[in-house]
């Protein structure tokens, strides 16, 4: 594999209150890691007028208040940061997330198994085999895009998107996996469901994870699912890996 051109970037205009720094146009785990690194560097600078930093798959959006800083001034402050070296991040959390891959919790697992020509148990084994990184947050509150999954998961989205995907559904497409946080339409394949609320409006901090966090999944069966959910509600279940 070629090394991606990490130092090549382009500023894109997103109006007068957001600036995009684009590092590529494709899904590439290393470009994404670079985006999050630059995001951490810019965050550490604590530039007055910068409101939020939204790292996505291959670009960083800097939201700012144009009454505090002009775009020209912002660019001038950002440009020298883009070549800087920095090791990613001490506040990253490593999560262990239970998933039920059975029956009603996994409405698409048989379809996926047929189209990939591997057994459902192999899909579960592969989906739980690697520690995944949160590439970006978006689409819905608290909704993480995770990757990269093993190569067998390089499959396109469903032909017919669903109008309703239940919250806590685990979906896969294009070597990525996501967790739906609220009822919404969706076009990815649903291969499981977690009892964990990645978004809960009744929690003080409704969103569970952030870009850069690491997640590994492990299988639970459908009899365990309600018990785990009860334990989570009672705050008697740890999701964070001891390390």
């Amino acid at each position: 594999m070629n090394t991606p051109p990490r130092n090549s970037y382009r500023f894109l205009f997103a109006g007068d209150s957001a600036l995009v720094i684009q590092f590529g146009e494709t899904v590439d785990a290393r470009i994404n890691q670079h985006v999050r690194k630059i995001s951490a560097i810019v965050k550490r600078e604590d530039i007055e007028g910068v409101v939020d930093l939204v790292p996505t798959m291959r670009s960083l959006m800097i939201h700012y208040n144009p009454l505090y800083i002009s775009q020209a001034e912002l660019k001038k402050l950002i440009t020298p940061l883009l070549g800087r070296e920095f090791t990613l991040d001490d506040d990253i959390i490593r999560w262990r997330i239970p998933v039920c891959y059975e029956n009603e919790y996994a409405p698409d697992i048989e379809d996926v198994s047929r189209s990939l020509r591997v057994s459902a148990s192999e899909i579960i084994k592969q989906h739980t085999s690697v520690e995944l990184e949160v590439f970006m947050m978006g689409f819905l509150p608290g909704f993480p895009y995770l990757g990269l999954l093993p190569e067998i998961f390089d499959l396109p989205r469903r032909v017919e998107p669903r109008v309703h995907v239940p919250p806590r559904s685990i979906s896969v497409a294009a070597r990525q996996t996501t967790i739906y946080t609220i009822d919404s339409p969706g076009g990815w394949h649903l291969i499981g469901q977690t009892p964990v609320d990645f978004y809960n409006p009744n929690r003080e901090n409704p969103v569970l994870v952030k870009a850069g966090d690491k997640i590994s999944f492990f299988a639970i069966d459908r009899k365990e699912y309600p018990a785990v959910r009860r334990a989570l509600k009672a705050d008697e279940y740890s999701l964070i890996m001891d390390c």
Partner: protein
Amino acid sequence: MAIKIIDPGFNVTVQDFGRPKFQHLGVPVSGAIAPTLLRLANALVSNAGYEAGLEIRLMGPTFEVLCDSLRIALVGTSTPLEIIDGDITFQPANQSIKLKKGQIVKIGNVSDSGTTYLAFEGGFDLPKTYDSMSTYVRAGIGGYKGRPLLAGDVVPLKTNSATDRGELKLNDAWFLEENGPLRVILGPQDDYFSSNSIATFFDSKYSVTTEADRMGIRLDGPKLEHSKGYNIVSDGIVTGAIQVPGTGQPIMLLADHQTTGGYPKLGTVISADISRLGLLCPGTEITFQQITVEAAEQILVEQELKIHTAIGNFRPADPWLDHQALYNENLISGFM
């Protein structure tokens, strides 16, 4: 220290200025879709700029005052409010009004403008999520129980009585009359469109469809052709972004927009024109004009000045209280 909703109106929500600092968690900004008007409404009731008010589209609520006294201001419409207290009196919008316990306020049809705000002196006593009281209905956060108001809701306020001061009115409601082209900065994905498409966009009229809500406004007009497909790897979205899905019909994104998305965005409406987007009604024809970032920054500064000037130019409004009673108590004889 509350108001009680008798008739909820249509989709009335509590909104302040949103959650701009939490987009990195996928949380939409939300907040007032015409923030300038909420600022002016807050100023009329002497609130700090950031208090939440009620955002009203088409049909307003009817509510009863449960506290001793209360000051409110309705901004964005020219429709008067009805105050029911045995008799019915009418009070104009765009000024502060002092109410007494037991009075009922009816804000009826305000469809002369896309969005109207009702501010309450002291503001609501509601919990904040991610630093904001803004209601984001889809995810059930903010406002009153994360949803639009319903009949019977008792919405708590921070104060039990209005401060002792005269009433103020807005002199000049310029924001209701702005109707030039909406100003747009090209990008971030203008390279996904042919130069013909971009020219079409700026040379044509588009009309606001009925598919218009707090998330976005779908436009109807000449189709915009993509030059290299209509799927991009999802990237960040800013309020005012004009995204063009496969249909070729543009969508302008408002406060409740998703934080990221995978359609190319041809341009972005400038910050100074965002409140105008919130005021658009279905059927309205609009045009767009391309400007530079530097020009947009200058216009925003001028707009800030205009808002501060408007607040500085508030004039005393006649108290709505019974004039005869005032004469009898000789309170205003000094001015005769």
